[in-house]
């Protein structure tokens, strides 16, 4: 039993990691009052940017950052369309996904199948010695360990710093933020761009640590799952961790079941994460999702005059 469960849980952590980065990124965007449905496109293009930089510079860390920067640029584009030009947030996000996925397929052609330097798992000193927990959490690559800290920083930022409070307030009552003499437009830009950075890191994880190879369609719907998880998480980082690992678990389980070779057709197994997303939305709706959503989510700030 343990021989099956411990590797399964370890694989859960690994496949949950990109979703965790992206979920926190989308959460940050939404806390600023902006819905970003471009996550899928941003993760795709970030995965390619990260892979390309890692391949040409030989430095996976530069690649990781490049993924983040790609996410930021796309975030800036979304912010320009929705925050400055008052475009419809839902449609802009969809356009961003269409654009991002298209651009990835277009630019990625020469790279298919070339191995790039990425992040390899190693035993974290001391902590990996803990029985069971060490096996599950501390025999991964560096980016997984980074992802353990980010939810804590995220929580700290919004609960304990004034910038975090201001950014959250632009998602709740932008008019009040403006009345207090702050710049809600600027704060929204910041939320969308920094959120884009985290989403980009999630994409970078896919090409640098998850596969080490470039293939088209690497994201495979993880961006959409991240959007759903924000709702499931009630905009709280702690619950985002639970949600991301829940998905990681189903993905890992489904892969393992395929590897063992069951009678179930693989196409049915592949449906599991998407079915789970719907289930998770049903469960979160049950508890009244609207209560915790930022009050001004999805509405643009009208200019005066």
């Amino acid at each position: 039993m343990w021989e099956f469960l411990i590797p399964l849980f370890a694989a859960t952590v690994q496949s949950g990691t990109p979703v965790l980065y992206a979920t926190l990124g989308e959460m940050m965007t939404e806390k600023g009052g902006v819905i970003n449905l471009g996550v899928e496109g941003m993760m795709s293009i970030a995965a390619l940017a990260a892979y390309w930089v890692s391949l040409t510079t030989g430095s996976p860390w530069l690649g990781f950052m490049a993924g983040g920067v790609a996410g930021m640029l796309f975030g800036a584009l979304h912010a320009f369309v929705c925050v400055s030009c008052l475009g419809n947030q839902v449609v802009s996000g969809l356009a961003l996904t269409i654009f991002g996925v298209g651009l990835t397929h277009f630019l990625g052609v020469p790279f298919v199948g070339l191995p790039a330097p990425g992040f390899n798992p190693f035993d974290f000193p001391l902590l990996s010695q803990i029985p069971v927990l060490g096996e599950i959490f501390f025999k991964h690559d560096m980016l997984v360990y980074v992802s353990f800290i980010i939810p804590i920083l995220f929580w700290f930022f919004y609960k304990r710093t004034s910038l975090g409070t201001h950014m959250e307030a632009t998602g709740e009552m932008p008019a009040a933020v403006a009345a207090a003499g702050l710049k809600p437009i600027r704060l929204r830009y910041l939320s969308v761009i920094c959120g884009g950075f985290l989403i980009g890191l999630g994409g970078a994880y896919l090409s640098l640590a998850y596969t080490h190879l470039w293939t088209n369609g690497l994201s495979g719907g993880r961006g959409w799952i991240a959007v759903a998880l924000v709702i499931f998480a009630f905009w709280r980082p702690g619950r985002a961790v639970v949600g991301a690992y829940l998905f990681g678990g189903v993905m890992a389980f489904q892969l393992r079941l395929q590897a063992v070779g069951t009678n179930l057709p693989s196409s049915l197994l592949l449906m599991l994460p998407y079915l789970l997303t719907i289930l998770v939305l049903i469960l979160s709706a049950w508890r009244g999702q609207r209560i915790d959503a930022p009050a001004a989510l999805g509405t643009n700030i009208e200019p005066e005059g």
Partner: protein
Amino acid sequence: MLKIRKRNEPWKWGALVVFLGALLFSLLVSALLLEGQGKDALHGLMVLWDGSFGHLWALEGVLLKSIPLFLCSLGVAVAFRMQIWNIGAEGQFALGAIGATWMALSFPDLPGFILLPLMFIMAFVFGGLWALIPAFLKLKLRVNEIISTLMLNYIAILLIDYLVFGVWKDPSSFGFPMTPEFTAGAIVPSIGDSRVHWGLLFCAAVGIGLWAFMRFTRLGFELQASGEGARVAKYAKIRYGMLVMLVMSMSGGFAGWAGCVETSAVVNRLQPSLMVGYGYTAIVVAWLARLEPLNIAFASFLLAALRVGVENMQLELQIPAAFGVIMEGIILLTVLAGQFFLTYKLERKLKQD
């Protein structure tokens, strides 16, 4: 310094100017992309134009691709009008194809005038029911329809995989995932000697039918009114829930018809390569057309032309098909950003202090 001022009256030619501007901008960006790939941009755009409108066969190709785009966009637009975000046309298209294939494989010996209507009915039912799942989840459990329709897209595509790798697999296909080829009765015939099939006329009928429904029936009026939102609809004593179900089943049914037409008339069998993203392009079309049926016809034609032109570039210049998708994304983003100028204008602000 520039200052933002609200326009006193709407900008009459604004929508057209923004649309043309977006088209021009997307051409500019694509020229840059071509240069970036080491191709001659001007020549590339000529190949694009030539592939879309240069020959009669190109024009036939454009009409062929407009058909599924038009049907999907019409469906998407009907839902968007009520502010229901149905992003699931892709999946509803797939279910329509499955429904049509089921009939085609079950009754291969029926003559076309019985089998084809059966296929279209089943495609509408399948696509419509698939769209009713998110409608039901939205109404009863307040599940966000954007995500649920999207997830159902992934599931629908995997469902096609499941069928063509399994129960419906053609035993003589040498392991390729596809159903047997349809019999003659299951194929929508072509118009005269052209490649264009009678689905074109079907589209026209559906478009006019929908327009008449919206214009002349009470239900159509209620549908328009509830586009203002659930609260307004409640004030007007409109059964919002029932309308959502109606709109979503229509929306899914239209996309299902698109799936039926493509399977029956173009591919002649069910196979995974049927799914080329018409459902997603439909969102671009619907939004460019500002959700108006007549504009939708025009915009489907235009984006179909883009797809066909890019296919020509693919052949002649080895440009990936994704080139067209990039342009779609840019056009949509630019139109969204440009719509700002329909309600606001920038004015030079004189320093007063």
